[in-house]
């Protein structure tokens, strides 16, 4: 598998399948909805450049790919390297991945590996110097070997399967310290207090911006739509950190103005949806788009392509390397609500709290066919939500567009039932 199908007289990128896939989606996102925020133009343009024109991702220093939110990017920045999140949402790469992966495996992993396999992938991964692969779910764990087989440098970031115990915490802290060593070898630079502190300052600023955006989504009726929010957080995967932060801050100011102006991006009656489960990753925004095309609005989410990736912040008591690195380690383990961990009561509590804070009418639970952990947690989540009288729609799907019609039926039915529910209230 060292020669790839796309290498054979590959068409100019912008004519390629994945480019068209992205293009159609972006058209839908931009044109099907009347009042997109001005500040979103930056993101639309960014995605068009990167996904449709195939513009390579800008980066200083070595480029380090990460395959999960557990990779502490502050460390990577501190070593003067640039992290890029490799998780991929393209059906096209999903198909390529299917060539050498079991058909029943998770489309996200398939697409990710597929994109790594197809060298001309987006975001441009040809220049990867190292892939940090946290051992989260089985499929990602097993991916390490495959990625190595493709000729990539891979570092297994060992993540404990449980996060409650103190042992797990220490184990993880060790793993993170080991990553720091590996990065030192890779970059030949030294980790200093100043570097790390600056790196952490940058991400903290980005997170602060995200949190503001997050809080703005509490306003009802919604100030802007979930598809845009997902686009913003998806840009975080590969965009330049500071540029991204500035763009988000611009968006925030605009949304604040909208708030003061009493602007409504959705009707009063529009069901407010909390999105959870498998992450919508560009260009696979199928489900959020269907929801909002059907008149719902995604006001909050609990997915690793948005909230889970950016929400929780690092606290440091003493600004010494030891404390900072351990602090980072904690931030990437303790609050994480990923279902791979043995217990999921944190996730349940988080969902309930989000539902309460954003006065959510219903929850849409996306599970990628082949992502067992989400499929298995679905019941427990359904139960606690039912106990709170919050309706939930469980959707098992993948990247293929063929079930769109069927999905739209279900989503519309779901939204209709919510509407009647609200009317009867």
């Amino acid at each position, binding site marked *: 598998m060292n020669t790839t199908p796309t290498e054979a007289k590959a068409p100019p990128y912008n004519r390629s399948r994945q480019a068209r896939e992205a293009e159609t989606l972006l058209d839908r996102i931009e044109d099907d909805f009347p009042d997109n925020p001005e500040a979103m133009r930056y993101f639309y343009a960014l995605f068009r450049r990167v996904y449709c024109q195939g513009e390579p991702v800008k980066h200083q220093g070595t480029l380090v790919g990460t395959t999960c939110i557990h990779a502490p990017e502050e460390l990577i920045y501190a070593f003067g390297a640039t992290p890029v999140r490799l998780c991929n949402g393209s059906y096209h790469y999903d198909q390529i991945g299917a060539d050498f992966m079991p058909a029943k495996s998770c489309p996200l992993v398939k697409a990710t590996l597929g994109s790594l396999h197809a060298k001309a992938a987006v975001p441009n991964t040809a220049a990867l110097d190292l892939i940090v692969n946290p051992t989260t779910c089985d499929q990602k764990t097993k991916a390490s070997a495959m990625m190595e087989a493709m000729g990539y440098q891979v570092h297994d970031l060992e993540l404990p399967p449980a996060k409650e115990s103190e042992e797990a915490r220490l184990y993880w802290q060790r793993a993170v310290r080991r990553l720091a060593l590996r990065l030192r070898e890779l970059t030949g630079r030294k980790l200093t207090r100043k570097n790390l502190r600056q790196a952490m300052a940058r991400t903290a600023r980005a997170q602060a911006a995200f949190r503001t955006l997050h809080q703005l989504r509490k306003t009802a009726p919604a100030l802007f739509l979930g598809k845009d929010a997902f686009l913003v957080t998806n840009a975080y995967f590969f965009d330049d950190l500071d540029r991204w932060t500035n763009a988000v801050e611009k968006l925030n100011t605009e949304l604040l103005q909208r708030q003061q102006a009493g602007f409504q991006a959705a009707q009063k009656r529009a069901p407010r949806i909390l999105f959870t489960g498998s992450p919508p990753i560009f260009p696979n925004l199928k489900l959020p788009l269907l929801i909002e095309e059907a008149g719902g609005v995604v006001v909050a989410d609990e997915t690793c392509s948005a909230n889970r990736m950016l929400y929780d912040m690092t606290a440091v008591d003493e600004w010494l390397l030891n404390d900072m690195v351990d602090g980072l380690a904690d931030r990437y383990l303790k609050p994480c609500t990923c279902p791979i961990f043995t217990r999921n009561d944190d996730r349940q509590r988080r969902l309930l709290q989000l539902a309460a804070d954003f006065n959510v009418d219903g929850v849409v639970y996306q599970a990628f*066919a082949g992502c067992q952990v989400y499929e298995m947690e679905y019941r427990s989540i359904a139960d606690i939500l039912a106990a709170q009288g919050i309706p939930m729609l469980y959707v098992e*799907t993948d990247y293929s567009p063929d*079930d769109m019609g069927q999905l739209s039926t279900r989503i519309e*039915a779901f939204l209709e039932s919510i509407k009647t529910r609200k009317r009867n209230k």
Partner: protein
Amino acid sequence: MSYFAGIDIGSTAIKAAVVDQAGQLIGTRIAPTGSSFHRNAMETFEALLAQHGIIRDEVKFIIATGYGRKLFKEADDSISEITANAIGASEAGRVFGGVRTIINIGGQDSKAIQIDANGNVNNFAMNDKCAAGTGRFLDVAARNLEIDLEELGDYHFGGDGAPLTINSTCAVFAESEIIGLLANGHGKEEIVAGIHYSIARRTVRLAKRVGIEDRVYFDGGPALNKGLVAALQDELGRELVIPEQPQTTTAFGAAVLARSQYLSE
């Protein structure tokens, strides 16, 4: 006199229904979807009106439902077949004393819906993009066994001995399995029964996901199949409520909704 219509554009058949001001069902009509279903839908609709001597203008409000609903531009509004089905069922179910659970087996999907007393959807489940356990599955089987869809019911009871178990849930694999069984000299009767039971099992599993409450209303084309009904009742362990025109429940529901929407505006 003003009327209200509902048009259900399904994957295999187009169903149209008309109700009068009182919400009484005037009539229904069914036609195959075919390739250009927009034209067929229009024709079916007009044929229905003609049949009952209703002028187009008398139809005040039309609601489309089913997969084709978005593309049926003549409709004043569209609604998902699940909601429509729920309304239709709860309306039609009144004569049976009200229903709370609906099982619908359509051309390419099967649904289980749980509704409250007013016909609002509480919860529903749907097969995940796979024709297994749907009407299409029956078509395939019938074709392999070289019998008409309508005859399947009679075959179901014709057999002596236990029904075979059809293991493969996928319509495509089932095809080859059936051929294999025929080759092994099994009677069509037991095979048909087997098929019915395999569908029934899947459907019941679906129904259990939404929770089964008192009367279970069974509609959709396959509801005409006595054998399947028997199998389902077996698996469910309770009586099923079946309307005399199972296919048109959804269209009827759409029509009822059209009426109420029109009156509320």
